[in-house]
């Protein structure tokens, strides 16, 4: 299958403090990948680093290839073609991503002029088509409105329209619905999945909400302290998490139906990147940790065809999985 993006051993350090400690991600065309993890786990930094959006004092190493071409450290001219063109990104706070003193038309047309060879009326027609596509009613008139005249959900729709302006192959949605109300979140997620299937666009959905990721992604990667600790198809991850941290995250989520149980909280907090424990970063909070966990950080190793886990207990888990498969 054609590989759209392949990230290998991506590392980021701020002022000598490593925050991303070797991340590998492979993304196929049209695939939806979810990235979950707590704040500071490196979900957003991974993509900001990949697209060269981090401040200059960040030390980035590794490899990021877009259809085979290395883009990490590529010249600005080439990155400008990638960013907003091949790869688009939307953020949690859409209101701050728009310029409040320019009309939506000016901002959409700017994106179109940068990434598409369109002139004159064609630009305006395309801007209207994009607004229609993301479900803004009365698009022709609303083009002349300013960002504050739209509600939070509508502004996020406009951001999605701008992201689509360059016909991207990959959309990176960084907590796109976190600031929105529940019923509006459902609208935006539905819009994203419709657009994705219509345009056959790949998507990386970054979220702290396991439910959002589970429902909208084919595959999920769980991040902890700058590394991926488990990667699996979403239905398998939530039915049968293997890494103790993934198990903890799912156990910490209160159920919406069935009997109420005491939440299984993960004790302690995320380690400080400047004082990372030796060995497995999760070991100090892990109920199943044993002596070998403190010696060396486990690497992400496959335990089944499409699943990998970074945990020394995964070996026994693999036997358990094979046992289940044999039955």
């Amino acid at each position, binding site marked *: 299958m054609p590989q759209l993006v392949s990230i290998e051993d991506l590392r980021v350090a701020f002022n000598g403090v490593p925050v991303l400690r070797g991340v590998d991600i492979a993304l196929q065309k049209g695939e939806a990948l979810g990235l979950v993890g*707590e*704040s500071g786990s490196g979900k957003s930094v991974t993509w900001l680093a990949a697209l060269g959006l981090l401040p200059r004092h960040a030390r980035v190493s590794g490899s990021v290839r877009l259809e085979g071409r290395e883009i990490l450290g590529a010249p600005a001219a080439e990155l400008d073609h990638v960013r907003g063109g091949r790869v688009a990104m939307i953020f949690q706070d859409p209101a701050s991503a728009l310029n409040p003193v320019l009309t939506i038309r000016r901002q959409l047309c700017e994106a179109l002029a940068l990434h598409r060879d369109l002139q004159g009326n064609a630009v305006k027609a395309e801007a209207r088509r994009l607004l229609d596509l993301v479900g803004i009613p009365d698009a022709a008139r609303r083009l002349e409105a300013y960002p504050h005249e739209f*509600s939070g*959900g*509508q502004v996020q729709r406009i951001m999605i329209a701008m992201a689509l302006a360059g016909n991207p192959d990959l959309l990176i949605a960084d907590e796109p619905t976190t600031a929105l*109300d*529940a*019923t*509006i*979140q*459902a*609208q935006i*997620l*539905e819009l994203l*999945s419709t657009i994705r299937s219509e345009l056959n666009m790949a998507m990386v959905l970054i979220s*702290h*909400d*396991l*439910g*959002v990721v*589970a*429902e*909208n992604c084919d595959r999920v990667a769980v991040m902890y302290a700058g590394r991926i600790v488990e990667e699996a198809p*979403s*239905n398998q991850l*939530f*039915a049968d998490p293997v890494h103790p941290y993934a198990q*903890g*995250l*799912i*156990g*910490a*989520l*209160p*159920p*919406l*139906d069935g009997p*109420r149980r*005491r*939440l*299984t*909280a*993960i*004790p302690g*907090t*995320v380690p400080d990147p400047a004082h990372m424990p030796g060995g497995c970063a999760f070991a100090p909070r892990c109920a199943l940790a044993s002596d070998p966990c403190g010696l060396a950080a486990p690497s992400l190793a496959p335990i089944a065809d499409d699943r990998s886990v970074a945990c020394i207990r995964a070996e026994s888990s693999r036997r358990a999985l094979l046992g289940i498969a044999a039955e």
Partner: protein
Amino acid sequence: MSAPLVEVAAISRSYSMRSGMFGRATAVHAVDGVSLTIARGQTLGLVGESGSGKSTTGRIVLGLEPPDRGEVRFDGKPMATPGTAAWRGQRARMQMIFQDPLGALDRRLPVATQIREPLDIHGLGTASMREERVRELLRAVELTPVHGARYPGALSGGQRQRIVLARALATKPDFLVCDEPVSALDVSIQAQVVNLLADLQAQLGLTLLFISHDLRVVRQISNIVAVMYLGRIVEIGSADDLFARPEHPYTQALVSASPAPGRRSAGRIVLSGDPPNPAARPQGCAFHPRCPRAIARCASEVPALETVGGDRQVACHLVTGAVTRDAA
């Protein structure tokens, strides 16, 4: 059963808002005829989207803001006039916890000093008793005096929320209003704080009003849950039952919009339209422009909150109308 600790009778609160410098002032009905009772030691959960009036309800119940109409009774007595000694005594028995612990703490004071502050303000105990009480409170929220000596900036989000909780408990209150207390926290930390809150409630016999947009967290901690939409309660019932069998179309949409791992979005109810503006409240049932099942009557007549069996009350013509028909 003993008398309820908190009784809220048909409170309303509106603000006047001007559009533009010379625009006409319009009334925004933030809360409109909300009645609630909370039994001692119980938790009432209040859910709804932004602008539904849940925080305003919390502020009125706590006496931070007077209602325009209606009354709040605490422990059988009406709320005292703000500023009087009786009010101060009453306020020591009820406390509030907000969403943003960093905003609720003073960054330039060690957190132990801040936990002590309510004791100083209400003049409780001698200096050494206060110090002892601070240590006791830190232990209660599973922190140590080492944490107490730190400044808020040196603590994690979960630890700060524990400090806020300790400070709220300093005066040994009977009643806590928690406004989105865990919304800013990561899932694993959220579970720690929810468990801690449940433990403290059981130990101290606290009564809680728990405000959140997160249905899962609300269900976890509440006995009774009320769903608000544009300033009114549209459905109220026992926590276990309400989300399992929601009756009001809005509650159904909310439950359906709550993503669950392991469930694909098939059959999801996606509401059209935006959450309505409290300044431009639709006629009739406020929810009818977004309701997938609205009938003509919904646009003209405001549905009243009626009992539909058991402890469930619903404000919807479709639901209460059907009950009346069944009974006939």
